[in-house]
């Protein structure tokens, strides 16, 4: 029974990270950009929640969504000129943006944590037999599942989704065929903003304190998951995000209490082993022979 409990908790955390990972994967897909500043969407959203503590949920949720999607679109503008730059240059640019936003947050709210709360009812738990399940666990799994399905339908059933996959597949050719790359990239950023909003709202019950580094930590873990899963396609990237969240929770539960401080070492060790065994990604098919 204890392990079932661990498993459920792990699936919930995995769902959250898969949302962030999907956002990172979408942006990487359409512009080969690893957005280190993805976490700052969550951070800025977190401060928005802090600033509006006590307001009606019906105002706060749309407001947070608006702020996060707006920031995502601003980022898109900032990265637009670098679309054909070297990967390292783009990466450092996103780091600069991340650093900039964290510096602004630190200046405005200091490094000290600020408490945010929304949907506080979600933190409550009910028991089934020996299982103690918090509502947020169920909601995380449900929202995660619905959004992943929704994005999947969007990509496969809509015009812009199809064009997005074409751009992800070969941007230059897609552009030459008249696909409006700008519109596709803007849509991807907006979508990743929506995903970040959902992830933030579900993270709040577990991490009710926002600091300037709040988002960076989440984004780095999700990013590692994305690379471990396989960046080239969305599904492996998302599964990778899920796996790292799942492993994070599982390893934490399984480690003896005194050893839990070494959680990071165990996780990172696993990451290294997976990368050595499957450098192309855990869930990625064997690479096709390179066509010259």
């Amino acid at each position, binding site marked *: 029974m204890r392990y079932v409990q661990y498993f459920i908790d792990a699936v919930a955390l995995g769902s959250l990270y898969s949302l962030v990972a999907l956002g990172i994967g979408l942006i990487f897909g359409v512009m080969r950009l690893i957005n280190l500043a993805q976490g700052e969407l969550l951070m800025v959203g977190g401060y928005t929640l802090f600033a509006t503590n006590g307001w009606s949920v019906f105002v706060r949720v749309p407001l947070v969504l608006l702020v996060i999607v707006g920031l995502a679109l601003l980022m898109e503008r900032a990265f637009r000129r670098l679309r054909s730059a070297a990967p390292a240059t783009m990466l450092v640019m996103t780091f600069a943006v991340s650093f900039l936003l964290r510096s602004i947050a630190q200046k405005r709210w200091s490094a000290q944590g600020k408490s945010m709360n929304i949907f506080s009812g979600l933190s409550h738990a009910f028991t089934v037999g020996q299982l103690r399940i918090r509502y947020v666990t169920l909601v995380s799994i449900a929202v995660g599942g619905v959004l992943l399905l929704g994005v999947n339908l969007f990509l496969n059933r809509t015009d812009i989704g199809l064009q997005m996959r074409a751009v992800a597949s070969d941007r230059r050719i897609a552009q030459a065929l008249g696909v409006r790359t700008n519109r596709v990239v803007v849509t991807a950023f907006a979508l990743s903003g929506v995903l970040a909003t959902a992830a933030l709202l579900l993270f709040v019950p577990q991490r009710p304190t926002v600091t300037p580094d709040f988002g960076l930590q989440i984004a780095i873990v999700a990013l590692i998951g994305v690379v471990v899963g396989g960046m080239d396609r969305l599904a492996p990237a998302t599964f990778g995000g899920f796996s790292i969240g799942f492993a994070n929770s599982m390893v934490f539960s399984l480690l003896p209490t005194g050893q839990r401080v070494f959680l*990071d070492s165990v996780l990172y060790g696993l990451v290294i082993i997976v990368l050595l065994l499957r450098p192309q990604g855990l869930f990625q098919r064997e690479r096709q022979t390179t066509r010259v």
Partner: protein
Amino acid sequence: MLVLLAGGLSTVFSQSVQLKFHNAFVITAMVVCVYVSSGNSGVISFGHVSFVAIGAFAAGLFSMKAQQKGAVFNDLFPFIKDNHLGNLATLILAAALGGLYALVVGIALVRLNGLSAGIATFAVLGITRNVLRNWTKVGPGAKSIPGVEETTGLTQALMALILCIVVAYIYQRSAAGRRLRATREDAIAAQGVGIRIYRERLIAFTLSGAMAGFVGAVYVHFLGSVSTDQVYLDLTFLVLAMLVVGGVDSLWGATLGGLSISFINTLLSEGEKGLSLFRQKFTLPTSSSGIILAALMAIVLLTRPKGLANGREFGLRGFRRRDSI
């Protein structure tokens, strides 16, 4: 040229600000270390600050007196707790440990390419930090190492930087360095002429690890105290940002990026406290230095995506475009 620069600085800035510039020299030395491996091989490493950390903590712990260590870090293994080394010895020890650690890590990881390599080396950084922070038999835990002798002055910092640049230059011009640069330009062609990528990368990784360990020791002798958070994420990204802003593919780029950004960084953070520049007093608002620095880096990247150096390299007859390897 660096000496001239140092001389020039002393005329423009007051004594107190000058002192802060050794920080810039030490950070630039770190950028040069990362360049030796990442610049020459084309494989980015997020793990080099681990080697800096190892060097810094080894030098810091061994330069503390035994009885002092007993009081602050009672959990340490006896051989760490009971021994004490002089300054020079801590530098050598740090270089040796950094090199050894890099060798071990490199044996496993230099086979990886691209993003996988980046994330795997990042994982090494995470493990290093996690272990040093929590395994109090080898590391300082959540505390800072206090009271390390501050023997790194402006001269020593500059000497350390010059030493790193010279080593990097010699390596780059050596047969091994040229072989590695060939693999960066075209891995398949390089293998075609018999170059073993794994071996060449491992040599560079180990050398740069030793250099990073050494710089870590120099760093701790300048800071006087060090905690695990000081040699972790922010330093990693800052060093990489300097490398990329300067220009990843040349030693001149690494040096230029390191010096320019860390000088600006120093000026800005001094500026928050109030800065006399040409006898004018400037004061920047608190915490604004990070904002200005990040914005500056972003502007450089947007206007010169290939970095400040744009491929130029140190040369005997001034700077020349690097057209061949």
